């Protein structure tokens, strides 16, 4: 029974329980607004699964997932703006925010985003490709640890500043005011609920993919690289390639999450993808337990939920409460929320031993 969680039956029943909560319980108990908010949190959880893989299993402290999240989000937002403009004033029309900024002609790089297929392909391939190229450049040179963390964070900062300067991408305001999502009106509650289901299904798929990677030979290699990179190299493996794959998959997850975030939340701006949001992504993973499969998901959902609830309860003091919560979790539960069952088990075992001693 100890290995139930690792057995096939255990996995399937775990997913069934997850699906029951996401598809059955949540829509039943949450109001339309709360369900939309939950969909937003799930987007963060999807990013977290990727970070769990790259950081928890691969040891790469990715402080800049906002870059890939932002790319996915902006790519999707560009398509939605194009679709809105086309619906309003025919093909080739200039999106409303550009008209306000005095841009009368559609920039060439916007044109392909009129196509939904191109947009989806771009969301899946562009950030993943960028991460792979970046990973190759960085990991082949054996840049790691704090140096990699600083590099990835600098990237997030630079990306946000770059976007602020792009008037054709909405600058500081970012892109907002989306009306349609692949032909469906976004302000219809039925469609909002559907969007939630799609987001939830993507989360399940992403977790399944991460699980598959963890259980494969590749997953063991990744942990081996994390724990003893030199030894793996001496065994004849290219450690850099192993890391690149995990980094690229994490980027893919972040990009997909960003693409879903845009229709769910209705706005993307440089404020949502810079250094601070990137750290917030990481924080959820740290609090949940980075090395476990579900820890990052639980952590991301818990942090986002706590943030919203605390700020609703104490609008002017919630940041203190949040800070306190982080300090407590890091100090008392270094393994994150996911380590609670293990800790409880250890306490129980100790108690049992004590009772045995007493009765002996």
């Amino acid at each position, binding site marked *: 029974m100890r290995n139930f969680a690792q057995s096939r039956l255990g996995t399937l029943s775990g997913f069934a329980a997850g699906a029951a909560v996401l598809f059955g319980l949540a829509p039943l108990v949450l109001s339309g607004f709360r369900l939309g908010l939950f969909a937003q949190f799930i987007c963060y959880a999807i990013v977290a699964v990727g970070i769990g893989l790259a950081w928890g299993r691969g040891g790469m402290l990715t402080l800049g997932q906002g870059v890939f999240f932002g790319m996915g989000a902006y790519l999707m937002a560009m398509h939605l703006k194009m679709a809105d403009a086309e619906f309003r004033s025919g093909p080739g029309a200039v999106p409303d925010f550009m008209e*306000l900024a005095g841009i009368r002609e559609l920039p060439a790089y916007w044109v392909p985003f009129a196509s939904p297929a191109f947009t989806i392909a771009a969301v899946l391939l562009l950030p993943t490709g960028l991460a792979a190229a970046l990973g190759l450049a960085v990991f082949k040179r054996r840049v790691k640890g704090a140096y990699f963390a600083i590099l990835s964070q600098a990237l997030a900062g630079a990306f946000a500043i770059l976007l602020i300067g792009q008037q054709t991408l909405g600058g500081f305001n970012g892109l907002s005011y989306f009306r349609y999502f692949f032909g469906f009106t976004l*302000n219809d509650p039925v469609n909002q609920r559907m969007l939630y289901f799609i987001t939830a*299904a993507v989360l399940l798929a992403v977790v399944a993919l991460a699980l598959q990677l963890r259980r494969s030979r590749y997953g063991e290699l990744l942990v081996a690289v994390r724990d003893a990179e030199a030894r793996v190299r001496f065994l004849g493996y290219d450690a850099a390639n192993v890391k690149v794959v995990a980094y690229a998959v994490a980027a893919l997850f972040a990009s997909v999450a960003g693409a879903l975030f845009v229709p769910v939340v209705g706005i993307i*701006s440089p404020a*949502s993808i810079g250094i601070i949001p990137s750290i917030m992504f990481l924080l959820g993973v740290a609090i949940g337990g980075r090395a476990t499969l579900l820890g990052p998901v639980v952590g991301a959902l818990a942090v986002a939920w706590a943030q919203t609830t605390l700020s*609703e309860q104490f609008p002017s003091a919630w*940041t203190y409460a949040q800070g306190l919560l982080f300090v407590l979790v890091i100090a008392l539960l270094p393994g994150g929320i996911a380590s609670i069952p293990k800790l409880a088990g250890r306490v129980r075992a100790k108690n049992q031993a004590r009772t045995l001693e007493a009765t002996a």
Partner: protein
Amino acid sequence: MPHRSTPRAGRTARALAAAAAVAVAAATAACGSRAGDEATAAESCLDTSGDTVKVGALNSLSGTMAISETTVRDAIYLAVDQINADGGVLDKQIEIVAEDGASEPTVFAEKSEKLIREDCVAAVFGGWTSASRKAMLPVFEDNDSLLYYPVQYEGLEASENIFYSGATTNQQIVPALDYLAEAGVESMYLVGSDYVFPRTANAVINAYAEAHGIEILGEDYVPLGSTEFSTIVQQVDSAGADAVFNTLNGDSNVAFFREYTNVGLTAEDMPVMSVSIAEEEIGGIGIENIEGQLAAWNYYQTIESDTNAAFVEAFKGEYGDDRVTSDPMEASYNSVHLWAATVEKAGSFEVDDVQEAAGGVSFDGPEGTVVIDGDNNHLSKTARIGIIESDGLLHTIWESDGPIEPDPFLEGYDWAADLSVGE
């Protein structure tokens, strides 16, 4: 730790992926309205059966904008307290639901939706940056609710669901340019933060300058929050313009004016006209760096009138003698009173009734009488140029002949024909 063999794990994952695909397909099969269908506005859950009515106060209480936006919140509370003390609105006491916008557009969108759909508020007061307003606009339109936005902004917007109680361009920037042109300014240098307000403001300034024979010698932007100004101030200095038009926001102003004073530039050789520096900011910049410089707003603490004296006294009485009152605070104070007056006129809290009744509603505010323009939901306001004196306050040195009608799309100005787009 025992590990499962790879093929089995692979099969599990494939089964799960297939299940997920089926779930997505099933989910998308039953869908709501498509593009082109009649839009259905959400029903409001506003409940007016009790003795109280809820309104939302949505300001950034954390993050970079907190320092500015908490002052607006204080003014909103003051106005609500006054109205409640006078018997409330339609005999109901106003109850504030406060939320923190956290200086982030996505949070503004989330919290405004929460206020409308969960708290069922009659109206929301707040927002500061244009980014926050742009994030909230679709939420208020989709849920057919009301936002009262209290800060001067770049214009080119008029939503039925937003009441703009700050100045639009023709009530702040255009009068400031008129003032400079009258003072004989023939060349200007533009310095601004890199976001939508400075960029739009400078587009207006460029169009104005071209039509009025003013030469623009340079136009520079720095990222929000940047404090590195040695290069820009050098350029301003060597360009030798007659005046500088400053659309910097926040902390950048501190660094800019310090550098400006350091290189020996003064208000006499090259005056700086600022549009985002109010009483609150002067203390941070330091009076020695900014004395004699100009600002353009609609309200100053030093305005001499009985209503303003009462407002300043009430504010200091509530929050302390060391506090100052500024234009955005006054505009948010006015907006609460305007909402209450509109509700009284309509005899109803319903959004449709309030929108219907809004045109022509007026309030004798600290800046003078303001009137809602029913066509664009902006206010008619008196423009004022102020000079910063050694007491750290702004003093009016010029004001428009009475209130200026709001013209957010600058339709009444020939030189601005290329700026505004048909709306």
